[in-house]
């Protein structure tokens, strides 16, 4: 009786694991344009609380997640993240050093990054955590800025074009 219960438990665990593996990861591939009307109000225009790009191009493969971000009159950033969560170097404008990691958490992609640059303050370090969710033709990014022990979070929505 005890053996049967253990066997049933093992079978159940296997089934659950297989169903998890079988669950397809969402595909973020595409060109995404910032939708101000659906995003938090204070992230565009003159005084953004947290910077979000105007447009994002994503190319996703089973192992990699390539992101190229552009903003109006701002230098672009791009990175090819390994979806195993290993650290990669972000291609950032001159004067900025940035590294980051990406991984799937359920159906979301979570990107964490650490940006540093020199300012009249000295070496300035800012960390970001982004949670990406895709739903049909809408991409939502919830981004947290962590700097000098202070955190703030904003949400942006992008439309697929």
């Amino acid at each position, binding site marked *: 009786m005890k053996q049967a219960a253990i066997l049933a438990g093992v079978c159940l665990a296997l089934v659950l694991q297989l169903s998890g593996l079988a669950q397809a990861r969402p595909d973020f591939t595409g060109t995404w344009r910032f939708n101000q009307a659906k995003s938090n109000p204070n992230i565009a225009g003159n005084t953004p609380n947290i910077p979000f790009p105007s447009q994002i191009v994503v190319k996703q493969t089973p192992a990699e997640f390539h992101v190229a971000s552009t*903003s109006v009159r701002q230098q672009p950033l791009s990175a090819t993240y390994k979806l195993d969560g290993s650290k990669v170097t972000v291609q950032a404008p001159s004067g900025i050093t940035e590294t980051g990691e990406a991984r799937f958490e359920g159906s979301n992609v979570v990107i964490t990054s650490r940006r540093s640059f020199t300012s009249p303050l000295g070496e*300035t370090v800012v960390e970001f955590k982004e949670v990406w969710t895709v739903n049909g033709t809408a991409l939502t990014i919830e981004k947290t800025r962590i700097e000098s022990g202070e955190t703030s979070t904003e949400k942006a929505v992008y439309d697929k074009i």
Partner: protein
Amino acid sequence: MRLLFAAVSAAILVGAAIPVQAHHSFSAVYDGNKPITLRGKVSKLGWSNPHAHIYVDVVNQKGETVTWEVESASATNLLRAGIRKEDFIGTEVIVKGFLAKDGTPTVNASSFTLVELKKEYTSDEATPGR
């Protein structure tokens, strides 16, 4: 007479150009890739429209005091938010904003907190295309 006319015309043109220069787009002057937080004492204030300018003495990592120019919302908007000119001088302030593209100690403030007064101002000026 011609010289006087030319001088007056030049003065009018320069005068007309100043407000245009004072109101500019964020992306032309500030680096959206360089968010920065400052903490220091307010040493001077430019209480004006379309932007108030707060001068903040901040100690850098070398221990030197550097005066930063903080471009904020307009004096009118600050007043509407209950923040007066008198609230600033000598007070400690925490500013969150973006560094100027030219690397000078100049930031555009997205928010600031007057520490002693426990007053926080978050700009709601954001509008598309500015």
